[in-house]
């Protein structure tokens, strides 16, 4: 279970560019719960993900994962149990390494009794090819090709596989389909839901598409100005619809239409 307790973060404090990105945010998420997060640009969605994965130190508050306080754990240690995907398909893979090498790196990193000089075995390679085949993109036949040659959708699918090769306890998806063409985006969303279900991880997904936010997962959070202004699930969420959610957002966020325009676009 993820438990966020009153976390705050202000960037560039005391300067003219001071930005209160997270303002006393609290919520908790159950195991294998899939939560979508929406909000206009600058609402603090990505900052929230950065705080959970440890990209920067917090000003105040605590983050607990399964009862363990991870607030001060460095980013690279947290990533052992937190998988994170970004909008940019380039960020989740190493382009100069082959598909097999990318997978080997992650596999060896998490393997028990692996030393620094360990290499992958033939059995490992078969297992990785099998996992690639499950993505349904033909990547299993291109193991020796550098990842830099893959398309955005293929790279994002590979990123997803890398992030979940060892089932993470928490999966953070930061608009990970936004930079893809519609067809690839649908494909990656299907894969995401499948993989998230199988891994049993708590899943948080940022999206700008309200329809997608309501269709995916079990619960939706709305953020505005560094706070969570609405948290809907169950029957309310099922019956609210895009217009209802937009209405709720406008009421709770208390902002004018123009600045929230980005929220209202309903394309992928």
């Amino acid at each position, binding site marked *: 279970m993820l438990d966020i307790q009153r976390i705050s973060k202000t960037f560039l404090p005391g300067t003219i560019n001071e930005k209160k990105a997270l303002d006393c945010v609290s919520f908790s998420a159950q195991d294998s719960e899939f939560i979508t997060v929406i909000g206009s640009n600058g609402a603090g969605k990505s900052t929230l993900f950065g705080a959970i994965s440890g990209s920067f130190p917090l000003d105040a508050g605590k983050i607990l994962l399964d009862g363990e306080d991870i607030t001060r754990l460095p980013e690279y240690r947290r990533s052992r149990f937190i998988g994170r995907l970004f909008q940019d398909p380039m960020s989740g893979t190493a382009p100069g390494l082959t598909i097999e090498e990318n997978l080997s790196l992650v596999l060896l990193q998490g393997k028990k009794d692996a030393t620094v000089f360990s*290499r992958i075995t033939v059995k490992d390679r078969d297992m990785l090819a099998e996992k690639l085949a499950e993505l349904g993109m033909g990547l299993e036949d291109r193991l020796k090709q550098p990842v830099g040659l893959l398309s955005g959708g293929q790279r994002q699918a590979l990123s997803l596989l890398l992030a979940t090769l060892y089932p993470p306890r928490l999966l953070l998806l930061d608009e990970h389909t936004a930079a893809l063409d519609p067809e690839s985006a649908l494909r990656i969303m299907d894969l995401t839901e499948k993989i998230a279900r199988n891994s049993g991880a708590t899943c948080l997904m940022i999206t700008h598409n309200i329809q997608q936010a309501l269709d995916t997962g079990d619960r939706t959070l709305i953020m505005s100005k560094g706070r969570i202004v609405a948290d809907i699930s169950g029957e309310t969420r099922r019956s609210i619809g895009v217009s209802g959610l937009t209405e709720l957002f406008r009421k709770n966020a208390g902002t004018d239409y123009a600045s929230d325009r980005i929220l209202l676009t309903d394309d992928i």
Partner: protein
Amino acid sequence: MERIIRTALELGFGYAPVALALFLSFRILDIADLATDGCFVLGAAISVRMAAAGNPLLGILLAVPSGMLVGAVSAELQTRLGIPSILAGIITNTALYSVNLMVMGWRSNVNLIKEDSVFTLFRKMIPGAWSDFLLLTVFPTVIALLLKWFMSTRLGLSIRATGDNPVMVRASSIDTSSMIRAGLLISSSMTALSGAVIGQYQKTVDINSGTGVVVIALACLIIGETVLGRKSMNKSIAGAVIGSVIYRFVYALVFYTQLVPVQCLKLLTSAVVAAAIAVPHLREERAAVSGTDAAEKEGEENA
């Protein structure tokens, strides 16, 4: 003529580990390690001094940990103390000048006159004009094979990914600073090892014998990439060794034909390296400019 070719081959293979070191630090980690010159002399100084004291083999072996020490200092300066990598290299290199003098017993050069080197010992086992050549080819070949193997291990893959996409590496719970440290440790030990072998081969070490080694090694790397390409790890590693041999052939050619005064060779080498690194950049920039032109044109047409 045979002697000229042999010497070129010997020097090419002898200096090849420096090109391999630069491949690791410059191409893979994207760090221009300017401590290379001093590190090379340190290896040579230790090796020649130990040979002069009657321990040639120990001299070569000791070069490895001494190189690691240099790599560790340079890496600590840039990962823990926040000194930019180029400056960290320059600082280490400057400090090494004093260290090297100290190793050489506060003299600016040390020579082997009658004392044994690994080469004279090897000649006793396998005599002949090509004895040195044999020893000198075995040594970088072993290093190249070890490097090739290392690049597919967990640590090797982590180092490669660190130069490629540090964000992804941190997300895979690997500490990028540790990877930079490990990479520089290995590259510096290769450089010092090459210095140690060349020192005993030439039976001398001079405090200034390292000047330009880093640029020459870069030139070798670039020559190798031009000949073999940089598509795969195997080609890149083989290319560094082959590039080093080609460079020494060009050097020999210039030396014996006086096509260009030998004194100008470092000027020429620098120009080649600068051009080789500049050309891809300029090409990209040009493509970007013509790209915007095309976009503007398209925009006008649409309007």
